[in-house]
């Protein structure tokens, strides 16, 4: 029951699926460090953005999964957000049908293949209210990572209506804002997607997109558009607990993610204020200015001033 949420109730940490096209050896090194050094309980693995990247990482991810599990982490396989080709559909269906692993559904195709077995509903599924969350819970959803547009007040409404559903919050990283079946990155290089030469691998945190006036605005990651700003929760951890959140998702970026997860570990334990968290994250070199507007029902780009007095 939500009424039983107490100060000090667990607030687990998860590493979200890697959104960017990193080389296989870099991926393996990254997850090896997470396995050995990061104070997180859960790691989501899998290519969620572009089906063309899937074959490049298959072996590295399989080895990473073993390493992470040996390190005591729970591995959850994330499915592609926009499956389209027969191969992409088959891969998603195979993942979803595997009863030995928990999956994160990236679209309703995965829910169709998975239900009624348990699954995590990813942030790219359109769940905006309690009745929709109840529908997914009825079909086997055990945890919902809230859509990034949702304010904390909406997350609280969902938590109150669905006491058995775990709620995860996208707490760190560039916000996944949009998906397309066209690749803006290939388009910029004058390439077709089918012969894209994997140009997205040049941008480990996404390619910065500025306005005509040079203001940082968005970031392109192949088929995906992200925010230029870097999301960071900026409310006391007790406010998250009160809204029913029990897990924080840290989305991988090229800065020191082990250091990021240690900072969040202290924040989740109530040892670090949101202001100190923001200052420490800023010192690590996040991919863009810190933003948090969505959590407060404002424009997502609204920034955090880490130096402002609380």
């Amino acid at each position: 029951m939500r009424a039983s949420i107490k100060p000090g109730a667990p607030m687990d940490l998860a590493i979200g699926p890697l959104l960017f096209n990193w080389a296989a050896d870099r991926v393996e090194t990254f997850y090896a460090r997470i396995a050995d050094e990061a104070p997180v309980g859960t790691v989501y693995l899998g290519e969620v953005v572009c089906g063309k990247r899937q074959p490049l990482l298959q072996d590295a991810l399989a080895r990473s999964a073993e390493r992470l599990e040996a390190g005591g982490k729970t591995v959850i396989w994330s499915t592609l957000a926009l499956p389209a080709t027969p191969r992409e559909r088959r891969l998603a269906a195979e993942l979803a049908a595997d009863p030995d692993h928990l999956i994160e559904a990236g679209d309703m195709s995965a829910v169709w293949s998975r239900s009624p077995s348990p699954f995590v509903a990813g942030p790219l599924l359109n769940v905006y209210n309690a009745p929709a969350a109840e529908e997914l819970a009825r079909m086997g959803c055990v945890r919902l990572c809230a859509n990034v547009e949702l304010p904390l007040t909406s997350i609280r409404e969902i938590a109150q209506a669905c006491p058995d559903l775990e709620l995860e919050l996208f707490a760190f990283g560039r916000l996944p804002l949009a998906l397309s079946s066209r690749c803006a990155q290939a388009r910029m290089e004058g390439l077709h997607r089918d012969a894209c030469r994997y140009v997205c691998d040049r941008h480990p945190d996404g390619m910065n997109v500025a306005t005509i006036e040079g203001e940082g605005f968005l970031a392109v990651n192949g088929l995906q558009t992200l925010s230029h700003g870097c999301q960071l929760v900026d409310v006391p951890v007790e406010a998250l607990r009160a809204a029913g959140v029990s897990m924080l998702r840290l989305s991988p970026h090229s800065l020191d993610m082990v250091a990021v997860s240690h900072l969040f570990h202290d924040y989740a334990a109530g040892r670090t204020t949101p202001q100190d968290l923001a200052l420490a994250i800023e010192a690590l070199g996040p991919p863009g200015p810190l933003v948090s507007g969505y959590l407060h029902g404002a424009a997502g780009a609204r920034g955090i001033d880490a130096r402002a007095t609380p």
Partner: protein
Amino acid sequence: MTAARIPALELVCPAGSPAMLKAAVEAGADSVYCGFRDETNARNFPGLNFSPAELRAATDWAHERGTRVLLALNTFARADAPDLWRASADAAAVAGVDAVIAADLAVLSHMRANHPGVRLHLSVQAAAGTPEAISFYAREYGVKRVVLPRVLSVEEIRSLTPEIAVETEAFVYGGLCVMAEGRCALSSYASGRSPNLSGVCSPPEAVSFTDDHGERTTRLSGFAIDRLPAGEVGGYPTLCKGRFRGGGSGEAGYLFEDPVSLNAMSLLGGLAGAGVTAVKIEGRQRGRAYVARVTKAFRAAIDAIGRGESPELYESLLGDLAEGARETTGAYRKRWR
């Protein structure tokens, strides 16, 4: 003759107001689609849409003329106000509409539980483009038709239709989303409002213009999204159709999409052959004269196909109407893959 074996395409036209509904019906629409005057539909713009009483009267009027009325209830219910969406669903049932077009699981489950007799169409905002996703909505909510995402080619539609047990509806004319519909938060990132949250993209109250040195800069909540020589007319300033600088390049360009408009009239025969049931015109925000002209042209083209003639004769009729005055066949020929 092959045309005789393929049923005629149903022509589905936009009705942003009662006057526009009348214009579409008189111009030959088989079906019209409209929404209530609030955030429950994806064209929540000032001055558009219907009150419950207007919808009821318009539905009666259209039914007397043999035209179907579809009600778009295709945004996602706000967590703190699901009753607004429930009330709209109930009002649609009372008005006697022929189908409700929805994307939100909350709306679909409410309809199934409370109005099992009302036909459900899956909105393009649900972004269901695979047999698995479409089958999910058909099994769980009894959806009878899916409005296809605007990313499938004719060939892909041809292989999709035999795999699903529901009708398909395909956009053939008007504005195009660059991003997967219903999975785009660019507008709310800048302005706080988006199609999923509030039924608007790049909301008019967040748009402003500044003139400087003979150029006009368009802004969305302060972010400069385009710049044109003063006096040059652009389309509605939608964020994804603006100009940006990518990857530190000095030059600003149409990073996501050139300002083009969909016209798939030449592909109507191919779409029918691919198993498509209905074709849809976008543009509830475009006005009465617009809908009359586009509906007439597509009526003529569909009737021509019925007589075994080519619809291409009618294609040039609409060239000057396109936003930015340039047209594309979109994904249907998939030149960009």
